[in-house]
């Protein structure tokens, strides 16, 4: 953890076990702790945070710990910065990660500004990641529990925020977190994890959500020669590497989505190919930002999805050159670079790789 000064800590409490334990550990370490639950999504939810029952859990854990708890309604910001871009991205054939955008704009920006206004110089959360001090400043590093590490979705946190951020459960395994919660008799000790996008319900799904907001467009499915081999009902729901639901005739070898052209105003086209065609030697980067020093041409490891395994490569001329062939990355997916110590050293967004 970074060095701290005296003063209260604002800890984000989602109503889950990790943030419950984070609050408890900070309190135990002698901090003055105030809990906050952000109300982000006002619509129906059966998957993630923001449900009234989660707010209740956060509040009751705070009561149990004897700390103050508040609820901040950032619903308008969430709609503008997360939900609307999520819908737009799908409309243009991209594969967004709304959790990353929520971290970027809400948890580690909007809330930080609120914390400033209210006089908190430090904030905390229950994410599985660590903030480590390096000679060139604080860096975000992987949490010690590999299976739960969330550094990928947190890579967007600005250095100025890292400097004041406390991530107390980053040093623990999930098993240890649950043990602490059970030990303290917190009601969230055995609560299942939220995994999915909080504003997409399991009951109705992504198709229904997007369909309520944008017209879903059918697409022609073609092979790499341009021959039509099937159709999909909504191009917005197709992702790179997808194998099922492409309306292909049976009997052939499995086909995978290699490319999506959802260009507005044109007939959307999905191109499929064999599994071998999914492997590429590089991934173009639409955007890229080094955290500290520029590490072009340096061997690093790159992670391209929340639970993807890191693979070796180098950033050269605005693209990742893979050490060994890598599966195609969908346009819009985040690519995060780590050094050998597991620190985030860079991050950006994958561009579209032409066939």
């Amino acid at each position: 953890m970074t060095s701290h000064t005296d003063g209260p800590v604002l800890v984000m409490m989602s109503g889950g076990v990790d943030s419950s334990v984070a609050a408890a550990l900070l309190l135990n370490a002698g901090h003055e702790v105030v809990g906050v639950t952000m109300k982000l999504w006002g619509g129906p939810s059966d998957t993630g945070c923001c449900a009234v029952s989660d707010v209740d859990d956060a509040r009751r854990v705070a009561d149990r710990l004897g700390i103050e708890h508040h609820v901040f309604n950032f619903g308008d910001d969430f709609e503008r910065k997360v939900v609307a871009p999520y819908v737009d991205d799908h409309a243009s054939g991209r594969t967004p990660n709304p959790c990353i955008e929520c971290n970027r704009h809400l948890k580690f920006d909007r809330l930080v500004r609120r914390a400033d206004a209210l006089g908190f110089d430090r904030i905390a959360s229950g994410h599985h990641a660590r903030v480590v001090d390096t000679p060139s400043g604080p860096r975000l590093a992987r949490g010690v529990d590999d299976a739960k590490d969330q550094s990928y979705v947190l890579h967007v946190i600005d250095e100025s925020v890292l400097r004041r951020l406390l991530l107390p459960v980053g040093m623990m395994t999930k098993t240890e977190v649950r043990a602490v919660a059970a030990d303290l008799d917190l009601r969230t000790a055995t609560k299942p994890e939220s995994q999915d996008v909080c504003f997409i319900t399991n009951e109705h799904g992504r198709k229904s959500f997007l369909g309520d907001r944008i017209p879903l467009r059918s697409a022609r499915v073609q092979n790499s020669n341009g021959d039509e081999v099937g159709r999909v009902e909504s191009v917005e729901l197709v992702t790179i590497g997808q194998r099922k639901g492409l309306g292909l005739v049976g009997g052939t070898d499995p086909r995978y989505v290699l490319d999506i052209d959802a260009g507005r105003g044109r007939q959307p086209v999905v191109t499929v190919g064999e599994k071998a065609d999914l492997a590429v030697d590089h991934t173009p980067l639409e955007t890229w930002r080094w955290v500290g020093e520029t590490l072009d041409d340096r061997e690093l490891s790159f992670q391209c999805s929340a639970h993807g395994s890191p693979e070796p490569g180098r950033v050269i001329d605005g693209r990742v050159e893979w050490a060994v062939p890598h599966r195609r990355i969908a346009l819009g997916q985040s690519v995060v670079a780590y050094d050998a110590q597991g620190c985030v050293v860079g991050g950006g967004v994958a561009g579209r790789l032409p066939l």
Partner: protein
Amino acid sequence: MVTIERHEAPEVYLDHAASTPLRAEARSAWLEASERHHANPTGSHRAARAARRALDDARDDLAALLDRSPTEVVFTSGGSEADNMAIRGVLHDRGGTAVCSAGEHHAVLEPVEHAGGITVALEADGSVSPDRLADVLRAEESVSVVSIMTVNNETGVINDIPGLVDVTRACAPSAVFHTDAVQAMSWLDLRTHVASADLVSITGHKIGGPVGIGALLMGDGVVLDPLILGGGQERGRRAGTPDVAGALAFTAAAVAADAERPESVKRLGALRDRLINGLRSQLGDQMMVTVLDGGAPVAAGIAHVIFCDLEAEALLFLLDAAGLHAAAASSCSSGAQDPSHVLAAMGIDRMVAQGSLRLSLGHTTTDADIDAALAIIPPAVQRLTACGGG
């Protein structure tokens, strides 16, 4: 760095419109009745009959206080139940369309909207215009119930209930007129102000009675389908074991509030004006006085203001930390602040409405509370303004 000194801060309670402290008269009435009347008043034995007598005494006293007949008083669990009973009870009984103002409490608004009813926009001054209501009633033939609140719970604006009832009688003669007078009892004489309404909702905890007891006043001849079926209590209009102690405490609070009203309207109105003027002189253009300058009459104890370019949620946090308890718009079930539908109905922009603050005074409010509020609020507003609004 502001230290948050929650525990040492004095408590300044300016949220009486949400709930006001229990009056001594109500407390002793409740304690005495709950000791004495353990029996169910629907029973036939001596103890039950005593409880029944106490309940009906409370009903008689409340009715007398409000210039109604005892048969008109139906005890409920509070204002929300009374509102639901009025709107849904009429609709279930005779169908038709419900009409209410867009600034009603959610206990009216939701039943009306749920039944596909019509809402009438508020005027810029926060009131409901009889002319605008007339236009709606003339355009819609099937109106069976009209509901307009007596005093708005956010802004404190007082509606012209006699005028609105007249318009309803003229334009929709068969419609029942309901008013949610939950916020009004401390500030207005309901004997006159809502005398012509067919249905009136009132509740205990806004006037110093306990939470969990209220009443729907039902004019003779008004028929409702009951919301709660069961043992036929309250003349078949509201089933459930009657809350004898609650009814006595509610009535005791109502009597006390009524007795002190002329004096407290004067006293609290002066304190409210001192609060507003004090804030205005310290904050100038950073603050907008929402309805007090607008022309519509406003209940004496409610001060509604809007601070420019700041978020009430952040302001409430700082005020709370300093020991001042106030409110913004209505809070949603999670405890977060939702944008105010009342201000929206007045045509106030959603972004502007984010800076709203309701300071509501009540029977325990003192000069010292106002001094404290004037010392706490301006620096908190200045701090947030300096930080980009919070």
